[in-house]
């Protein structure tokens, strides 16, 4: 696997509660830079909650609280000094459901950019083109950038959402339940771009099936009921799981 073993994200003794419900339990996990890490588990395993906590989208929900730390480059993201909008630009997020805003394709890709001061028009155009090319969507939309984004197919919408995040040049890209409900062609296009992206970004995905996890991941963390069961190189987890629960899940005994 990749020789670069620097840790981009360190999650330490992390607990998360919705009201009285304890959904993430004392979780410790390191995520390496320039790799694709799959955070993997059945529905309600806590994976989505963990991904939401990483760019503090969980702040938006009432009556949630957390203990422990999530460190990105050694900085605790819940530190009061941290500017939450800067954090969200640094840790980009693609949602399970493709959610283009009811604006044009152009406006969707440049949505985050327009809140950054001092961007020149040409710079924005270049970034938009680069982001759409990297997300493998440019050729399909270059002649209709000002059409409504909601007119795109589901797969194109999902790639648009990837492009929209890329345009902000984040350091970490989180893709939740990527590609669930997409056709195989769109899925393989997104997976190809993910593999290209890891040169420059740290990618965290929550794959929607084992096959996808095995195709793209460098490392896999298996989460069950809010607890980390095990974390290792993808091949080790898939071929030689140490924990019985992991092997039960992978062989399809539950989930």
């Amino acid at each position: 696997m990749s020789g670069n073993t620097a840790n981009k994200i360190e999650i330490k003794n992390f607990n998360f509660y919705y009201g009285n419900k304890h959904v993430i339990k004392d979780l410790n996990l390191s995520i390496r830079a320039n790799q694709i890490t799959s955070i993997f588990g059945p529905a309600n395993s806590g994976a989505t909650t963990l991904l939401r906590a990483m760019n503090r989208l969980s702040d938006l929900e009432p009556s949630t609280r957390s203990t422990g730390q999530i460190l990105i480059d050694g900085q605790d993201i819940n530190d009061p000094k941290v500017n939450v909008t800067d954090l969200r630009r640094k840790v980009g997020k693609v949602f399970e459901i493709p959610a283009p805003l009811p604006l044009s394709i152009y406006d969707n890709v440049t949505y985050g950019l327009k809140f950054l001061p001092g961007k020149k028009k040409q710079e924005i155009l270049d970034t938009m083109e680069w982001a759409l090319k990297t997300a493998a969507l440019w050729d399909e939309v270059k002649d209709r950038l000002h059409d409504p984004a909601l007119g795109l197919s589901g797969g194109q919408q999902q790639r648009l959402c990837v492009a929209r995040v890329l345009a902000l040049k984040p350091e970490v890209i989180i893709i939740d339940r990527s590609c669930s409900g997409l056709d195989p062609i769109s899925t393989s296009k997104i997976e190809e771009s993910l593999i290209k992206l890891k040169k420059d970004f740290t990618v965290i995905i929550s794959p929607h099936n084992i096959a996808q996890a095995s195709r793209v991941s460098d490392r896999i963390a298996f989460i069950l009921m809010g607890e980390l069961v095990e974390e290792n190189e993808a091949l080790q987890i898939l071929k030689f799981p140490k924990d019985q629960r992991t092997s039960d899940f992978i062989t399809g005994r539950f989930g």
Partner: protein
Amino acid sequence: MIKLTARTSERIAKVFILSIAVLIMGILIWIIGDILLNGIPHINFSFLSQMPRNMGREGGIFPTIVGTLMLTVLAILIAVPFGVGAAYYLAEYTKGGIVTRIIRFGAESLAGIPSIVYGIFGVLLFVEILGLGFSIISGALTVSIMILPTIIRTSEEALLAVPKIYRDASFSLGATKWQTIRCAVTPTAIRGIVNGVILGVGRCVAETAAVMLTMGGNVLAVPSSISSSGRTMAVHFYILAQEGVMQNAYTTAAILIILIFIINIGTNAVIDQFISKRTKGAR
């Protein structure tokens, strides 16, 4: 007890619902048709542009058109900032606590009060205590309070109907709360908000009791400013009908209905233009 098969109950339900729909539409078409058939043939330029003579038995309705427009524009200008502002506050800035519930309960109670009560309140507060007299401004202030609940509730519902995923997407692209409201929530909710305003306009145009009490409906001159008295078309229609001047009442009602049509269609066209511009990304 007779046991119906699924097929029969399906059919009965269908027939029942269909007949209700036909009945409602029938009544609506009857009322509007009656007014338009009796009114439209008598609409002409001189009716629209002339002063009423002999207390509206002869002549036109020009001052009441001016009065209606002044009242409506003024009331909307007063009510929309407060109403839409309150809706944004309720939908975006409160978390369903006690304050929200008090405001919501207050708004709902306001909606249930008969308009004559608003009229009395307007006379006491605006006409007497604030010394605005029987004037268009007193009428507009009274009517703006009446339409507030409609605007608040409709706008709030439009804002709450914006999918959570749009907010999440906007926040995760580094937008602040206000930027999210401005750039992601409002374009999605704007049609619903405008619908609330249109309902408010409809109520302004149609309101009679409260307007008659606060605007001093006896005056049949063209209002010269917002502090003059005046009469709206709805008030004029009411007085004409009461005095048995049926033809002019019908004509006035027809014009009133046509005006409301024009406002609705016009506003929707403007909004369509606005929305398609936004989705095309033209600046």
